[in-house]
């Protein structure tokens, strides 16, 4: 369950932004990139748990999840493909290593067209914050 570390990052970012803007967070939109293969249900519940135990500036934030397909583009031949296509050829172990460090894709995946490891992860790498919304906040008030 290393996902908790990333979930903490989301809350910490939201809190930082809220403090900077003097607001209370009402909504956090999280984009989940497919490459990192994070279980959505698991991540949702982990994130909710952390938020509950956090500062009151984020405690009541609603969380929205977007899923993003992972797209890879070869720098040698220009071919574009999805992680789904490559996943078939990966062992469970390889997928797990990519789960921890998505860049490991370059070690375990090749361009289906030309065989190159020199590709760009153009979409769907991992966890990202799409936006954070807030409203006026006065400390101590509900």
């Amino acid at each position, binding site marked *: 369950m290393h996902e*908790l*570390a*990333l979930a*903490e*990052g989301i809350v910490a970012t939201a809190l930082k*932004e809220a403090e900077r803007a003097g607001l209370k967070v009402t909504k956090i939109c999280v984009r989940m990139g497919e490459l990192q293969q994070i279980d959505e249900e698991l991540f949702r519940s982990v994130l909710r748990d952390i938020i509950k135990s956090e500062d009151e500036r984020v405690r009541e934030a609603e969380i929205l999840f977007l899923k993003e397909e992972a797209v890879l583009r070869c720098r040698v031949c220009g071919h574009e493909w999805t992680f789904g296509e490559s996943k078939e050829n990966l062992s469970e172990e390889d997928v797990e290593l990519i789960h921890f460090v*998505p*860049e490991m894709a370059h070690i375990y995946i090749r361009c289906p067209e030309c065989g190159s490891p020199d590709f760009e992860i153009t979409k769907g790498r991992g966890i990202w914050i799409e936006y954070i919304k807030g409203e006026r906040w006065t400390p101590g008030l509900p």
Partner: protein
Amino acid sequence: MDPRLAIIDRRLEDIGRVIAISGGKGGVGKSVTASVMALLLSKLGYRTGLLDLDFYGPSVHTILGAKPTLPEEDRGVVPPEVHGIRFMSIIHYAGENPSPIRGVDISNATIELLAVTRWGSLDFLVVDMPPGIGDTTLDAVRLMKGAEFLLVTTGSKVSLAVVRRLLSMLVELKVRVIGVLENMRMDGSSSARDEMEALGVPFLGEIEFDRGLEDSIGDVEKLMRTHFAGKLERVLGKVLSST
């Protein structure tokens, strides 16, 4: 927004000192210095972590004779212990496979490791850096705010030319430079001491070329008995007193 950036400070907050072993050129002994320094610190009873950030040529595991081990998950990932040191390296994930990765991916992977690694409470985190002022060095400067740099060079003109550039960059960036260590010194060759002192950088000492070192790569017991380790222990004394 990248959610990982905001959490890195917190991951490093229980670490006393972060010491990045850097130096412009490759092959000057950065990885041996980082590895032996971590071993020495651990032997002195300090809680020590060792982070290999040289993704192009990770060498610390070779020097320590450590095998890739998938780190345990516990609210993040926990660096496996190697000879009493908490050791994090990309080789835990890449193994001995060739790593064809560009700077942009190295930067991303570095951020990922910094964001998820739970070092816990440490007295020292020693960081083995790649050569140059590229993605990793720029990321270390921007993400590991309190890191201090210890530069390794040889006395060779080629190496000095490169370390000079690195040094002027670090000074401009207001990074704390502990000092410069001259490694692989041969008798008769001129020393980096004068030049470094002229630049106003503490000179930490010289370590001679040690013919016994190669034979002890991968064998920690032997490594600690080398002339190199003996000399580095003295350098470490200066580092410990340079807070």
